[in-house]
């Protein structure tokens, strides 16, 4: 019994010593910093420039007249949400927000407006998350160029001069639960982009196509509502795309008029009998 006890004690001692030594000597991972705008930095761009990769920039409510450029893995978050945090393009010819060749950046809760380029431009980026943002009155709301494996969720891109979302040479992205309405050309324009998942979006009341897929393969377009566009979903010069369970004419569009005409006939008969009783014709 004692012969077994001593080697076990020795093993436990050396294990504990090694763990202690490792915890003292091993370089610790630096923790992500949180930067506040305007408390720490006056402008969003200054905060982003000062941030290290994986830092979080939290922006308070307000109107920020600037063109934001993100080239690193920062998380940019509007604490008060898109209804009270607006990025107005200072230089109209540039996007209000541009993510250039960044990986793992996050943008949440902003409104962006007033750009003749785009509300947000994702260029050559990957693993970007764009969520809960609002893009109105830009040339296009969201533009993705050469962007891969990114997620666009719960954004609103309305009343833009061209497209709600324009995706070019972008692959493996996930676009879900977004709204693109009242844009003066197309809701979504997917061009030369493959393997994207376009799921459960509302793309209504756009002047031309709801969703246009051009020269693209392997995209999944499912569960979307495309109502009152000139054309609902258009697939052109493309193959291998899965288009299923989208709504272009809901049952209500047929049921309601029929029900109302029926009620009109009933109303006529009721009035007729009522007036007959009154005037005793």
């Amino acid at each position, binding site marked *: 019994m004692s012969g077994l006890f001593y080697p076990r004690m020795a093993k436990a001692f050396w294990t504990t010593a090694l763990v202690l030594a490792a915890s003292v000597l091993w370089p610790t991972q630096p923790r992500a910093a949180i930067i506040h705008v305007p408390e720490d930095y006056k402008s969003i761009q200054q905060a982003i420039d000062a941030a290290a990769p994986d830092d979080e920039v939290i922006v308070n409510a307000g109107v920020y007249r600037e063109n934001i450029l993100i080239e690193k893995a920062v998380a940019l978050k509007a604490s008060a949400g898109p209804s009270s945090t607006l990025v107005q393009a200072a230089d109209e010819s540039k996007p209000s927000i541009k993510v250039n060749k960044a990986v793992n950046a996050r943008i949440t809760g902003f409104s962006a407006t007033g750009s003749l380029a785009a509300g947000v431009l994702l260029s050559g980026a990957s693993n970007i998350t764009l969520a809960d943002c609002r893009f109105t009155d830009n040339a296009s709301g969201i533009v993705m160029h050469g962007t891969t494996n990114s997620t666009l969720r719960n954004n609103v891109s309305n009343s833009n001069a061209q497209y709600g979302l324009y995706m070019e040479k972008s692959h493996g992205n996930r676009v879900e639960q977004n709204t693109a309405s009242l844009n003066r050309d197309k809701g979504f324009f997917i061009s030369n982009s493959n393997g994207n998942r376009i799921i459960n979006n509302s793309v209504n009341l756009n002047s031309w196509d709801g969703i246009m897929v051009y020269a693209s393969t392997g995209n999944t377009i499912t569960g979307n509502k495309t109502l009152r566009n000139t054309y609902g979903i258009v697939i052109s010069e493309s193959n291998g795309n899965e288009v299923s369970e989208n709504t272009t004419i809901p049952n209500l569009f047929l049921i*309601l*008029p029929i029900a109302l005409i029926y009620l009109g*006939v009933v109303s006529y008969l009721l009035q007729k009998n009522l007036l007959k009783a009154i005037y005793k014709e």
Partner: protein
Amino acid sequence: MGAILELLNAFTNFTTVLASFGMILATSSFISGLQMVKGKGRIERKIHRGNGFIAFGIFAVLAISSFVTYGLSLWSVAGWLSGALVITVKLLIVHSRNRRAFKYVSWLGATLISMWLYLVYIHIPL
């Protein structure tokens, strides 16, 4: 059941309710108008006029509501004016009591029903 719920949900919007009510009145007015053409009496005339004028009032309220909500644009003004023109032409023909013009009234009535169908369509909430 789902369709009924969807139908009820549509009526949570005030302009949808208004447009739907206009459609019901326009249908009643149209049927009584057709009966008048067949030569039926004053009850038909009362139904036709009463429903027609209330429907016209609803049309005006919907037009004003549209301009207030979405502003004035060329297409919306042109659309509402076209509707008003159809109603005015119909009233003028009826009041002219010209027999030759009367044969077009049922066509104008059908146009008014189509107009109300379109008004209901554009007011269904998405």
